């Protein structure tokens, strides 16, 4: 397996010029392994689609380089790149049948008719479009159109498959089943893929690794678990999953991996993965809602007042008022717990091994 199968080096894209210049992509570096599925995840306008379009060749980078399988393609026109794209709106050719859509690329490359037929046969079976070959795109459901679009790209056996929010036009149920299918398919033919989405659940279920982006910059690269459990900064922690942030100060460093923290007059011990914090430093304490336990009021504990109780069947959400912040607390399987009433004072326990420290930063809300 090649390590740097797709390589982005110091990629920069600036749209417009002068006062109206907008930096859409800011010094992005990324190495994708062969057969890996990477999602680019971020809010709209974060530059993820621009990166995809630069890999496909529809946009030229302002500076930086792109390599695919060791070969530089930075300035190669899109029709000569070993990449194919699945478009957000599928971009099926309305004047061609399903089969004609799927075989378009092979015909353009003047492959032998027999070869085209064999490959079409294979791919149609693979994505489950048998029997629909002669329909026109307008006669297909959204999910079927999506498969045609996927088949049309896959049949080219590209070195890198690009997917631009391919599920965003499907309804919620279809989206869930299709993303599992895409994942299975991708692993079966082990094709290197870049997947752009703004849906974190999609990114979590699909990806080998996730690239979190904001304002043109990469915030963090990691597996779904790493991203969720060890976010590097406030943005990532806030963007992925639900999170509570408390402001604290490091009072003592016990060792490289263990510090003592003061939050609202209570002292906590927190494990840190990397030794990047100093004594006396102001930090964010990140607590996931499922890492908080509530108990009836006890002395010498953090106390909070139940502001709101939201019952969701499988889960129970509390909003707990504590000093000047509101904590969100999530309890799994409410049947096994005592349900606190609104207005009740409770003891708030943090599972210490699940606490994380993040560098403090001013948050613009």
């Amino acid at each position, binding site marked *: 397996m090649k390590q740097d199968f797709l390589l982005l080096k110091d990629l920069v894209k600036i749209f417009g010029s002068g006062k109206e210049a907008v930096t859409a992509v800011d010094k992005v570096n990324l190495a994708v392994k062969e057969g890996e599925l990477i999602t680019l995840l971020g809010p709209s306008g974060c530059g993820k689609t621009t990166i995809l379009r630069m890999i496909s060749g529809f946009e030229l980078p302002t500076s930086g380089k792109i390599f695919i399988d060791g070969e530089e393609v930075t300035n190669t026109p899109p029709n000569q790149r070993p990449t194919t794209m699945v478009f957000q709106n599928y971009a099926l050719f309305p004047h061609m049948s399903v089969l004609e859509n799927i075989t378009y690329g092979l015909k*353009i490359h003047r492959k032998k008719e027999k070869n085209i037929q064999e490959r079409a046969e294979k791919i149609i079976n693979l994505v489950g479009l048998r029997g629909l070959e002669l329909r026109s795109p307008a006669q297909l459901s959204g999910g079927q159109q999506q498969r045609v679009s996927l088949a049309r790209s896959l049949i080219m056996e590209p070195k890198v498959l690009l997917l631009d929010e391919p599920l965003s036009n499907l309804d919620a149920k279809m989206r869930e089943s299709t993303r599992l299918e895409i994942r299975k398919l991708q692993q079966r033919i082990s094709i290197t893929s870049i997947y752009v989405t703004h849906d974190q659940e999609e990114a979590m279920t699909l990806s080998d690794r996730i690239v979190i982006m904001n304002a043109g910059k990469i915030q963090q690269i990691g597996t779904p678990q790493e991203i969720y459990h060890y976010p590097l900064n406030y943005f990532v922690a806030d963007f992925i999953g639900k999170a509570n942030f408390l402001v604290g100060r490091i009072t003592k460093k016990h060792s490289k991996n263990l510090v003592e923290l003061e939050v609202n007059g209570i002292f906590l011990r927190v494990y840190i993965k990397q030794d990047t914090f100093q004594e006396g430093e102001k930090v964010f304490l990140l607590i996931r809602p499922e890492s908080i336990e509530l108990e009836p009021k006890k002395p010498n504990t953090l106390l909070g007042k139940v502001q709101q109780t939201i019952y969701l069947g499988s889960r129970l959400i509390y909003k707990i008022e504590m000093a000047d912040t509101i904590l969100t607390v999530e309890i799994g399987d409410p049947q096994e717990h005592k349900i606190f009433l609104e207005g009740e004072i409770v003891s708030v326990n943090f599972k210490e091994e699940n606490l994380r420290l993040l560098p403090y930063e001013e948050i613009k809300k």
Partner: protein
Amino acid sequence: MYIKNRKLHEIMGNLKLIWKEPLLLLSILTIFYFLITFVMFPIFQVFKASLIVNHKLDFSNYLAIFSKRYYYQPFFNSMIVGVYTATLGMIIGFVFAYALTRTPLPFKNFFRLTATFPIISPPFVVALSAILLFGRAGTLTPYLNKIIGNYTIYGLGGLVLVETIAYAPTAFLVLYGILQAIDPSLEEAAMDLGASRLKVFSTITLPLSTPGIASAWLLVFIQSLADFGNPMVIAGNYRVLSVQAYLQIAGMYDTSRGATLAILLFIPTIVAFFIQKYWVAQKSYITVTGKPTGSTIKRLEWYIKLPVYSSCLIFTAIVFLFYGTIVYGSFQTLWGVNPTLTIKHYIEMFQVAKDYILDSLTLSSLATPIAGILGIFISFLVIRKKFIGRGAMEFISMLTFAVPGTVVGIGYILAFNQKTMLLPFIITGTAWIIIILLVFRNMPVGIRAGIAALQQIDPSIEEASTDLGADSSTTFRRITLPMIAPAFFSGLAYNFVKAMTAISAVIFVVSGKWNLITVAILGFVDNSRYAQAAAMCNLLIVIVLVALGVIQLVVNRIGKGVRTIDIIG
């Protein structure tokens, strides 16, 4: 049986609904009366005049036309001009539309404005300019003589040249809409799968715009066939139907022969119109959503840029040359002889042609709002109401759009120089006949604008009003009208332009008492007084531009953020 009953039930239900709204019923009946009297009846009269001689059915007119070259030649000539013009116009229109939608051509707005300018100018200005440039005393004639030898601008070549310049903008507007509606991601997808620029064009862009290309071709073909002003000025001995029909009636006083020629003009036009509307339009893959599409592929090879850009530049230069010549020519003492600059033509124009200018302004100003209101109201009925005859109403009102002006003009003199059951007054020779003619000739513009606007408005907004207790007319006044106001005013603007520049139909119904500026210009051209004609053309263009500007201001004020509706095609 059951289905039949249900259908009957539905019809009865609709009838009941209409009975409950007598105002709606009354307006439907009134509009049908207007459409029958002022649209169908005149056309019927033309047919009658060509088929009935001395109160008997008689095919002698047709036999004469098919046996004498003098009569049938114009038919073929018209078709030849139409085919050439449509083909050239379509190609120019396509190149322009492609450049504006698919390339990073600089100064796009400038090119778009120039490309559409001939649409708002009087139809024969281009012909007049061609005479000033290439006629016997033309500025460029000596140079061209050196290159291609002796030639004459009067005839097929000149006519195709001026009609191409005059009508290519129509093709451009149609194709611009079509190309804009093609999702650029389709072209990107093709390129992504390995297609070269040329392949993308031949396998995606071209097939997807084929219905649009056919539409554009047919529309230019229709306009070319119906054109009267340009061939009148520049066709010379090359006889075409519209001019011959007019000459038969105005020169030879042979109404039945003129009517027969008009029918020959009517038939191919109407066939082309139906092919365009009911066949080509339905083959379209593109649903025009009105959504502006995203960016297109920005990288473009020089071998595409070079021909596309230079074609745009050349056509734009020609437009500038032709209209510049009109301006320049209007200030010359005597074109080709005495180039001293003077303003005497303008002074003369106001002395001699003051009445024409005033008549044109008065009659157009009266006709425009009527046509606008009627148009928007018909579009409302057709799109939003269910009633028996709705299809017929749409059909008849759009018919006037396709019928050549010559046919309508002849129809009007035949239909309204006598009292009839439909109209118990004689209106020939009055201002009324001109106003009515202008109203019903230009109404389809308002209808199209109205339909386009209404289709963008969710019917549930109107249903909400009805649900809250308003009746049809209140809903229309309080809800629908304010929402379609921008479309109404855009339609109004174009209506006014068409009224001011009309010639082919109105030339039959003008009189000593009520005459029009376009007819006066044609008279000047006929007498070779080109400078005066040019001066009047300029005045006309200025009036039209001012009117457009004023209405644009109104639209901007009332319709913030509302898209203006394209009004051509």
